[in-house]
């Protein structure tokens, strides 16, 4: 793991966050009080931590606002190596900090692909030297993401790869997928899979259905996702490998996940905040910022995703941060690049579910921090004594408008361009050090 250097930058006076509403999704704690940060960890928390109560400590009055574990984003494309014009670890980490995200998992679909221990090492060193937040590389599960030969899962894990994925493609060969799951199991490694049957997607560019037909765009059926998911679940059953569907996007997939979980299989899933808050209609007149993979689906599918988060059947919410420059997006829809920048809007967009009454704050924060931490074996994602002081001070009510030019990300392709959101990170702490202040 790469942490911002905690040794000399945080050797400050302890800091007390006082007069806060502390929400810990890991334990269900929701209480007023204070939280003491020292040496990069949460040294203490409770009612007794008030302004001036801790000798020698600085204090920050939270004004009754929420302190929660920093968000952990399991799907971030950070650009390095090879796509530095779109994003770098430095800019992605600034965007993360501004969004209350204290840990990001970066995707291996870079150039070259992160399928070698030297590249894992490169990411960790670059992150140590340039990133404001914790960065964990995910490594390719097959060489060069070709879906043919297994990558060096054991060595990559020893080098620091936190999970394994095939980027934005599915492994089509069931035998390879089986072997990867079986092999990864020996190392306790988590497989994070993209769900897309390429032969069904073909040249599809958006959700298959009436809207695509009206727009004259080729559609991608939800079956392209569920077929791969159902196959994978059979292979999980066969091998016992730990499996996480990186993003699901439709009701049918949610049903498959629920069935797998009810059978006790080691299966979890994620959803992007885009698929919780947007649908295919948002594409409107060919707006390419709404082009992504999986595609934005029908409203009923979006409703299903929201229900899945509310019920806890969907474990993780990701930004699916995929920065794209004008060269990728300023094109006819069918030719435009997939992907949306999302790190800075993750929290604000997710809070729409809270303000609409669709999901509890607890559930949302769980899917944004505690659950990813559990899946990945991280010590963060909770507010406990001794836990890393990766924290976010959230104003749940503050209104703000997404202005692309003010985003920290190098690329401004946000589908929330001009959107009015309610609630955001005010201060973000990584290992006890404030890395972001709003305003």
């Amino acid at each position: 793991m790469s942490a911002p250097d905690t040794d000399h930058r945080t050797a400050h006076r302890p800091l007390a966050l006082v007069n806060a509403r502390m929400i810990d999704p890991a334990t269900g704690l929701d209480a007023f009080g204070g939280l003491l940060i020292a040496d990069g960890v949460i040294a203490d928390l409770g009612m007794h931590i008030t302004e001036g109560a801790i000798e020698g400590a600085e204090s920050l009055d939270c004004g009754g606002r929420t302190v929660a574990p920093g968000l952990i984003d399991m799907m971030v494309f950070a650009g390095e190596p090879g796509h530095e014009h779109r994003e770098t670890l430095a800019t992605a980490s600034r965007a993360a900090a501004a969004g209350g995200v204290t840990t990001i998992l970066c995707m291996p679909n870079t150039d070259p692909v992160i399928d070698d221990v030297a590249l894992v090492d490169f990411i960790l060193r670059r992150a140590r030297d340039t990133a404001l937040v914790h960065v964990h590389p995910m490594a390719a599960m097959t060489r060069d993401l070709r879906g043919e030969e297994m990558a060096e899962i054991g060595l990559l894990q020893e080098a620091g790869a936190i999970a394994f994925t095939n980027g934005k493609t599915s492994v089509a060969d069931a035998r390879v997928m089986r072997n990867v799951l079986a092999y990864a199991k020996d190392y306790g490694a988590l497989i994070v899979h993209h769900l897309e049957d390429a032969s069904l997607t073909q040249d599809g560019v958006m959700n298959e259905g009436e809207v695509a037909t009206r727009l004259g765009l080729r559609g991608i059926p939800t079956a392209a996702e569920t077929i791969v998911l159902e196959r994978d679940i059979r292979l999980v059953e066969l091998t016992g490998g730990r499996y996480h569907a990186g993003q699901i996007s439709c009701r049918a997939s949610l049903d498959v996940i629920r069935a797998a979980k009810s059978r006790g299989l080691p299966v979890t899933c994620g959803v992007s905040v885009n698929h919780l808050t947007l649908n295919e209609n948002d594409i409107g007149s060919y707006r390419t910022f709404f082009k992504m993979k999986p595609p934005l689906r029908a409203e009923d599918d979006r409703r299903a995703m929201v229900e899945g988060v509310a019920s806890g059947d969907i474990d993780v919410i990701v930004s699916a941060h995929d920065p794209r420059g004008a060269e990728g997006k300023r094109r006819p829809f069918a030719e435009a690049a997939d992907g949306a920048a999302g790190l800075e809007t993750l929290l604000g967009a997710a809070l729409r579910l809270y303000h609409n009454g669709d999901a509890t704050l607890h559930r949302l924060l769980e899917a944004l921090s505690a659950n990813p931490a559990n899946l990945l074996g991280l010590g963060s994602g909770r507010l406990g004594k001794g836990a890393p002081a990766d924290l976010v001070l959230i104003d749940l009510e503050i209104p703000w408008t997404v202005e692309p030019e003010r985003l920290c990300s190098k690329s401004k392709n946000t589908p929330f361009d001009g959107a009015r959101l309610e609630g955001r990170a005010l201060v973000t702490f990584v290992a006890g050090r404030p890395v972001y202040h709003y305003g």
Partner: protein
Amino acid sequence: MSIAAEASTSSFPHRHLLGIEGLSRSEITALLDLSEDAATLGRQIHKKRDDLRGRTLINLFFEASTRTQSSFELAGKRLGADVMNMSIPTSSVKKGETLIDTAVTLNAMRPDLLVVRHHSAGAVELLSQKVDCSVINAGDGSHEHPTQALLDALTIRRHKDRLQGLIVAICGDILHSRVARSNILLLNTLGARVRVIAPSTLLGAGIERLGVEVFTSMREGLKDADVVMMLRLQRERMMSSLIPSTREYFHFFGLDYDKLACAKPDALIMHPGPMNRGVEIDSNVADDPRSVIREQVEMGVAVRIAVLQALARHLPNE
């Protein structure tokens, strides 16, 4: 022939040696006892006997082999047989003649003993049903390699005086290994505790039902082992995506001093050969004083002499 050896021979009642499966503890022990005598013979200046004088032994190898084929040849010659080697690469078999046709053709030449290696599991048994002579399985696909298991057991017994209760760890490509299957059967029959250690992709489904303890970590699996038996890793395993690379394989499953330290200090190091140094075994470990890999080759000749002797007892005499 010594009286003891006579007794041993008559206590092996089978016409063929197709596998370890089906052999009793006493039959295996008898073969091992007989092999001891052959090992003694092999270390004398004069190594010849006449058990197989006038007999014909055909080595029929559908798959390339160096040590197995040559040790059968040597064993046959030391017992006075006429030995003929037939190597039939897969390609020429594909030209038309079926295995059965080949067997019928060879049978017409009236051999007394047929030593067969074939790439298909069960092929040697099939062939044995079509010929009149005794058949010895020198390896059929991923199924059995009985003389290898016997020579391994003999080597262990010579160093540890017993097999009962020993912890034997078989490490590597269990899925494709006939050596592993024959050893599991033999060692279990003789009361050893057998462990297999491999990545899950090289274990084979249901392996635990074969009476072994299963490990996917070398350090755990080698703990307190009396014998460490390494298996050869074929390069094509990488191609079929069962493991990622030789360097990763060596790192986690190659026998080096670090992992070997988990076994008993006097653990025997074994390998059926040919070795991939630096893939499944560290070069220095292969040459360590605890390594009995060369002795395995010597015992290979002894065991094959014993097997030929035991089967010769049942050859018709007119």
